[in-house]
Every structure is written in structure tokens, then in C-alpha cells.
């Protein structure tokens, strides 16, 4: 907005607009790259601390220059293209993944007047473009001429398509609450109560589906390192691969900032600062907290198998998202006081989580005595009760 206004005053309508827009887009790309660098540093430090080690320490003070070293290394690596790969698609696939992830950022506001182009249907635009990067992944998998890559590409298509639906549903319920798809209007509608308090179920659904969309543990099966090494990215190296890497971190940041804006009130909760820079810092703080939670999940949990992932999506998350919309609609229709919505939402979240937990952990009998007793009865049923218990 700033560059365009200044340049339009200077150069007149068409040229001022075009050059201004170009400058702003380049600025956005630079800002995103710096953000991604900071995210990689933060992830390595945080994961290191979770695992009981220090993380990068040598390059710069506490490893602060490590991301720059990584970027240099990636750029200087030899870009190997497999002989039987489809060269055109192989070259194009990283772009097909990166460009939609970047296009989302055009309409994400970071303060009440800091946004590149505030669209009235901002949320719709974001969701529509987020889906486009899936084709890029499948292209990457197919064009790599490797069985691991094809498997990874297909797995990723299945996973990402399945988890788009809960995101859309969760976002719909938010849009219903604020009666608008404009992101700035949604944020300002939360100046009294953030939507996280009103709809914890929507927050849970959005967070889980968002983590699955980005492809982070526990949902990173499609580029699982220990099975299909790298998945669709297995044949990419050097600068080509760094575009995928950039796209993944931009997506993570996008999900986190959407959580901060849609659920935690962005810059307007609990107080609305006058200076836009302060609002920007406030949003940044909330976003980085959400990102820290996402990294924490990566450090702690193993990854889900692809059929478990899909059954989680289709059997648990999607029905829950429908239920969420129904609750929101009922609440809006009858005009109840807001604690009732919180109560219903929270109780459904807690009940479903507890039921899932019991179903998974019940097969593992917890106490040693129970297990020994079971094994003894099993041995006796085989007629082995006199087997060397003590000899």
C-alpha cells in the first residue's frame, strides 16, 4: 500500500501502480524468506532442547547464522536431475508448489493497515489457493521416475485432499460467527472475546487439520524419512529442493498466522494498539507461540501410518467439523449467551478426545501384574504350566 501510493503520486496511475506492486511483492518475498530463516533456526534450537542437546552453537552466537549457512549450502549443491525424469515437469513442480503458498500471503493482514491487498472474500481466496499446491506435489512425485517418489506423491495427494475439508469447515464456522470473509473484519470482531474461547472445537479441528495440511509430524508420512526416503522430494537436491523446503515453512507460518488471526484475536485482543507496528509485533508473538507448539508436537510424537491418518480424517475430524457448524448455527439462530457455546464446544472436544484415548490405549494393559497374570494363563492354556518357571 505504501509503495503503491507513493509511486502513484510520483509517476501517475498505470506505471506507479505496477512498479509499486512489484516492489511490494518483492518486499513480501524478502520478509517471508527472513521469517523462514528464523523459523529454521527456532526449530533446530527448540528440537535440540527437547532432545536434551543444545542445537546449533557454532555458526554465530548460539547458531544464529546457521540458517544462512544452510541456505548457502543448498544453493551451492549440484542440482542432479535423474536421467529418466520428465524434465519439464521436474523443473516445474517446485514452482507449482511454491507459487500458491506465496499467493496466500497477499491477503493476510499483519496489522490493521498492513496488508498487501485486503480482499472482501479473503478467507475464500486463501482456501482456494491452498489447494493448488497439491497438484505440484503429485507432479513432483510422478516426474521423478522413482517408485518411492510415486508412492509419496500419491500418499500426499490423499492426505492433503482429505484434510482440506476440515479446514474449510472450521473456517466456515468462524465466518458464520463474524458474518464476513474479510480477514480484517474477523480480527476486529474478536476485540472482546477471541474465538478460541468461543469455539475450542473449531480451534482443535483447525490446528490438527492445519498441521496435517503442512505435512508435519505426526502427519509427515508422505515424506517419512524412515520408509520412503523423502517421498515426492527424493530426487530433488540443492536449489530445487530448497524451493520445496521454503514452501513448507511458508505454509507452516501461514497456518500459524491464520490460527493467530482467526482464533486468538490477532492484533485486537485484548487491546487494540494504535500504531500498526505494535499490532504487527503482537500478531507475531501469537504466531510464534503457535509455531512453538507445532514444533513441540514434532519433537514428541511418532508419525501416524497413512491409513490411520485417513481414518482419523474421515471418521473423526470431518464429522466433528460438521457438528461444529451445526452448533454454531444453532447458537446464532437462538441468540444464546456466549458461555453456552463454549461449554458445548469444550465438552464435545473433551469427550471425543477421551474416547479416542481409551480406544487406543485399552489394548495395552497397564500394570505389570496384569500382564504377567495374562501370560501365565495363556501358558497354562497351552499346557505349558510346568515350563521352567524356576529351575
Amino acid at each position, binding site marked *: 500500500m505504501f509503495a503503491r501510493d507513493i509511486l502513484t503520486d510520483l509517476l501517475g496511475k498505470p506505471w506507479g501502480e505496477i512498479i509499486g506492486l512489484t516492489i511490494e511483492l518483492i518486499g513480501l518475498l524478502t520478509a517471508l524468506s527472513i521469517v523462514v530463516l528464523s523459523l529454521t533456526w527456532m526449530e533446530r534450537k527448540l528440537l535440540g532442547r527437547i532432545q536434551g542437546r543444545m542445537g546449533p552453537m557454532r555458526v554465530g552466537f548460539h547458531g544464529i547464522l546457521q540458517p544462512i549457512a544452510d541456505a548457502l549450502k543448498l544453493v551451492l549443491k549440484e542440482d542432479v536431475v535423474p536421467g529418466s525424469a520428465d524434465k519439464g515437469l521436474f523443473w516445474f513442480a517446485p514452482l507449482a508448489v511454491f507459487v500458491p503458498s506465496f499467493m496466500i500471503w497477499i491477503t493476510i493482514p499483519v496489522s490493521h493497515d498492513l496488508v498487501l491487498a485486503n480482499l472482501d472474500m479473503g478467507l475464500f481466496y486463501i482456501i482456494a489457493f491452498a489447494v493448488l499446491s497439491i497438484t505440484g506435489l503429485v507432479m513432483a512425485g510422478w516426474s521423478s521416475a522413482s517408485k518411492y517418489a510415486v508412492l509419496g506423491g500419491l500418499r500426499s495427494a490423499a492426505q492433503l485432499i482429505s484434510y482440506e475439508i476440515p479446514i474449510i469447515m472450521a473456517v466456515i464456522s468462524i465466518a458464520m460467527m463474524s458474518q464476513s470473509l474479510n480477514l480484517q473484519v474477523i480480527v476486529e470482531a474478536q476485540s472482546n472475546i477471541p474465538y478460541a474461547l468461543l469455539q475450542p472445537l473449531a480451534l482443535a479441528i483447525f490446528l490438527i487439520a492445519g498441521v496435517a495440511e503442512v505435512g508435519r509430524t505426526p502427519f509427515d508420512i508422505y515424506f517419512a524419512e524412515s520408509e520412503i526416503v523423502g517421498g515426492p522430494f527424493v530426487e530433488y537436491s540443492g536449489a530445487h529442493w530448497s524451493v520445496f523446503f521454503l514452501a513448507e515453512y511458508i505454509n507452516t507460518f501461514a497456518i500459524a498466522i491464520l490460527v493467530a488471526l482467526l482464533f486468538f484475536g490477532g492484533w485486537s485482543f485484548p487491546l487494540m494498539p494504535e500504531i500498526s507496528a505494535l499490532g504487527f509485533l503482537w500478531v507475531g508473538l501469537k504466531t510464534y507461540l503457535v509455531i512453538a507448539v507445532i514444533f513441540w508436537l514434532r519433537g514428541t510424537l511418532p508419525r501416524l501410518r497413512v491409513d490411520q491418518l485417513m481414518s482419523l480424517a474421515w471418521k473423526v475430524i470431518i464429522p466433528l467439523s460438521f457438528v461444529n457448524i451445526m452448533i454454531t448455527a444453532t447458537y446464532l439462530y437462538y441468540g444464546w449467551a456466549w458461555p453456552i457455546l463454549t461449554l458445548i464446544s469444550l465438552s464435545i472436544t473433551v469427550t471425543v478426545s477421551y474416547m479416542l484415548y481409551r480406544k487406543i490405549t485399552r489394548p495395552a494393559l497397564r500394570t505389570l501384574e496384569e500382564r504377567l497374570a495374562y501370560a501365565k494363563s495363556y501358558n497354562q492354556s497351552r*499346557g*505349558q504350566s*510346568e*515350563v*521352567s518357571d524356576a*529351575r
Partner: protein
Amino acid sequence: MESLLVECLKEFKPRIGSSLDDTIATVSSELIVEVGRKLKDDYRTLCDFLRCLSVVDYEDHFQVVYHLYSTQKNHQLVIKSDIPYEDPHIPSVMGVWVGADWYEREGHDLFGIIFDGHPDLTPLILYEGFEGYPGRKSYPLNDYKEW
């Protein structure tokens, strides 16, 4: 233990011996599958665990040694069988204990013994195209030149 073996394997006419605390029964190589099945099913021995299947090269004959163990009765037996050096054949005991599979493949690989009835005697440990049987005493340790 010796009397038990004599009792069980009466019709196979084994030669019973012992070494330290193991009882050894030597039977002829054609009867090895029936001996194995008898030892596995007979309620007095119940040897359901094949501990080890080894091949020893005595330079004029091979000896295949089966170490058997019963998880229910907690006793160990040793069955041996001698086979001639030229054209070594012995029936495979895979039908009795499935766990004999890779032992026999390895025996074929390293010693050249043919286990009749084994479904798949492809090389296990040596690479395809290896000539010779390195486990035999006649195979040199240091004079081997690959090219």
C-alpha cells in the same frame, strides 16, 4: 536320556553316544526326516525347537548335526547324520521344523550339500556367481584369488 532315545528311536537303529552332557544319536541320512518327525511328535521327547543345524567337514565325509530342544520338557538332544563326500545329499527337514530353512541354504552355499526337498536353495550368504564352496577344508583361506 540315553535310554529314552534308545526307546524312541528303536526302529531307526541309531548309534547312541554322548559328549560332555549331550546325548548324541547318529542315524543314517535317508531316515532323518522320519527321525525328526518322531522326536517332535513323541510325547516323551517333544522336540519342537531346532536350535542349530550345522555341517562339519571331516574331509572324507560330511556330518550334519541337528541340535534339538524341547521348550516344554527342557531337554536337549543331538542328532547326527553322515553323508558321503562325493555327491552329498540329505533330505531337508523343513517339513518338520520350518526354521531349518536358512540353515540348509547356508549349508548348501558354504559346503555344497544338496538338501532334497528344500523349495529354494539359492545362495544366501555368498553373492551370485561365486564358484566353489568356501566352508570346505579343501578351500584355501589365503590363496584364494578373485581375479
